[in-house]
């Protein structure tokens, strides 16, 4: 009887948090990608504002309900707009932002090619 009681206590202590380790990692990953709208410049993970603390609870609840990362981001986007995500998605408003570095790289490469390699051949 005593042993069962101990086992129950051990079980309760080790399972105190409703989320398991994998979910906690996911919670941290998601909250690091959410912008704290009150203290702009900080992520929800880093912030200790009232808003950020509530958002952490919501993310935890959503994970507990079995929602995945994308579903949680979609929920946040619906409530607060795309600005809340640090990792900007690829869409018609952001294609310039995403493609500019590749474009610069290609143009830079073309210049180098023209200046050094083709010139050397001549």
């Amino acid at each position: 009887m005593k042993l069962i009681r101990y086992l129950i206590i051990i079980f309760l202590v080790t399972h105190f948090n409703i989320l398991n380790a994998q979910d906690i990692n996911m919670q941290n990953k998601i909250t690091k990608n959410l912008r704290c709208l009150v203290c702009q410049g900080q992520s929800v993970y880093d912030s200790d504002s009232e808003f950020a603390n509530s958002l952490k609870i919501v993310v935890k609840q959503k994970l507990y309900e079995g929602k995945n990362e994308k579903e949680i981001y979609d929920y946040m986007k619906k409530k607060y707009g795309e600005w809340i995500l640090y990792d900007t998605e690829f869409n018609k408003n952001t294609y310039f932002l995403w493609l500019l570095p590749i474009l610069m790289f290609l143009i830079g490469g073309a210049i180098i090619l023209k200046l050094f390699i083709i010139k050397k051949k001549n």
Partner: protein
Amino acid sequence: MKIKTLPVFITIVFFIIFFIFFKGLQNSNIYVPKSEFENDIPSFKAQIFDSEKKINSTDIFDDGKFYLVNIWASWCAPCRIEHPFLMNLSNQKNLEIIGLNYKDKKENAKKFLKELNNPYEIIIQDKDGTIAIEWGAYGVPESFLIYNNKIVKKIIGPINKDSFLKIQERIK
């Protein structure tokens, strides 16, 4: 005359970058969510203030009537500033004011209402701030004007004379 392509190209790139940064300078870097939109109200279940009863959002809002959901807390100083406007709006016939008591202590909230009067038809409790997140709010005070189960206006920060007049105009 042969035009050198490289200097021309660099100049064009320079001007494009200059233009983008110059435009960026004029934008405010403080984000403010849109305040004019039509959005469905969220569904939630919340505890009624100073009671053990719980209420569903569907039981609060009826069609064909205006509601003003006001997020408030006794510890929030701007809530005191907007309170006279809320008291005034509570006298309007076709408007019901619903209070969302945000992360507050019951005793303090009661004192606040005793001191400044109670403009709210129903007050619901939001102890951990998750219902405010459902509403897409990020601070106190914040108010939402609702008609036919849709948010028709959002007021971020305390209600002032300007927003008070706009609400009055909208509910006429």
